[in-house]
């Protein structure tokens, strides 16, 4: 059963990757990365039990804790970029 679930997760990863490659906007790709992150956490948890190595769950926990930092960095990036662009526009005339 773990096998079936992990295959479902792998297929979903592939679908998310298709979305990341197709785009069209950068946000779609970002969304795909985000989905990919949670799918990885699930895949790691399932595989840890598939192998009978529950101590490997640390890895999934690490992702669960810090994977969203990247998305926050993107928000911060867009925010400061839009502020900088507004500033440039004011400077330019």
């Amino acid at each position, binding site marked *: 059963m773990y*096998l079936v679930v*992990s295959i479902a997760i*792998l297929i979903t*990863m*592939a679908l998310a*990757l298709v979305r*990341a*490659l197709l*785009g069209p906007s*950068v946000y779609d*790709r*970002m969304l*795909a*990365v985000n989905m*990919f*992150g949670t799918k*990885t956490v699930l*895949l*790691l948890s399932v*595989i840890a039990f598939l*192998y009978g*190595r529950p*101590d*490997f769950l*640390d*890895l999934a*926990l*690490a*992702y669960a*804790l*810090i*994977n969203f*930092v*990247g998305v*926050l*960095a*993107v*928000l*911060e*990036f867009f*925010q*400061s*970029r839009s*502020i*900088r662009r507004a*500033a440039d526009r004011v400077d330019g005339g």
Partner: protein
Amino acid sequence: MVILFAVFLLTLLALTAVAIVRTENLFVAVMLTGIFSLLMAANFFVLDAADVALTEAAVGAGISTVLFLGALALTAEHERSVVSGRWLSMGIVVVTTLILIYATFDKPRLGDPRAPVHQHVAPWYLDQTPELIGIPNVVTAVLGSFRGYDTLGEVFVVVTACIGVLFILGVRRGGYSPSPDGDRLTTAGSGLRHHLIPKVVGRLLIPFIVLFGLYVLFHGEYGPGGGFQAGAIIATGIILYALLDGEAQALKAVPRPVLMGMVVGGATLYGAVGVAGIALGGSFLDYSVLADDPVKGQQLGILIIEVGVGLAVCGSLLSIFHAFAARGRH
């Protein structure tokens, strides 16, 4: 079945790699690199290499995206397309690939017990770890004790890289003073404090991220983990704070002298353990002499050098992050 998973993940990995190379939008490339890192970690994990997978997770999940975006803020978003020399490089790549594929025919099958790698020192490590060091995680035993010189070298590579980045990007004294050209750019560095949801959730999670990092640091002898991973995870926690409240605030919470102290102190701590070994009558980085019982001494030595590695890595990553952020502000 393991093979099937690995092949599937590797196929996705190859697709992602091609897409990263092909895209001219650097922002898209950064996003795809995130997927690449996740796939890589899953792949390591499927192949039972949890320590490496954790390293990939610790670095790839937060820090690399943050640093890439920091670099992207300093440059243009689109890659300048290079037209000349395409066919030549294409040819070189194709030839190299063919040679590499040819070389793999001589490779032993995955997990073959008769493979040369399993005939050499690996069995000895597996045999001797319980006896000489007495910890369950052989990877940590190899990295920390049997091959302690290599890890020492790696720490110094990290420290050197940090020094190099600081030299190139430059560090300003008193980094967090507001920039001279007005409030506008100061608000640009003020982080996500106007966004309620990230602020509250992020702040709630930071102590737990740091605690998890320390947990990984101190349990390297028992499960996947160790100094490198811990340093990266703790650094991610503090970078998260920098994203939420602005880089200046993060620099106030963990000031630059502390960061420098971590970098230098961590590397020195590692070296000091080695010297202590000499002083107590052993050889450099021989931990057996650190305690009455050689096995206890080994465990103590590994624990201390892991702390050293963690300090050095955490300090270096944060210094590099601040260097990028400071550069973006000015």
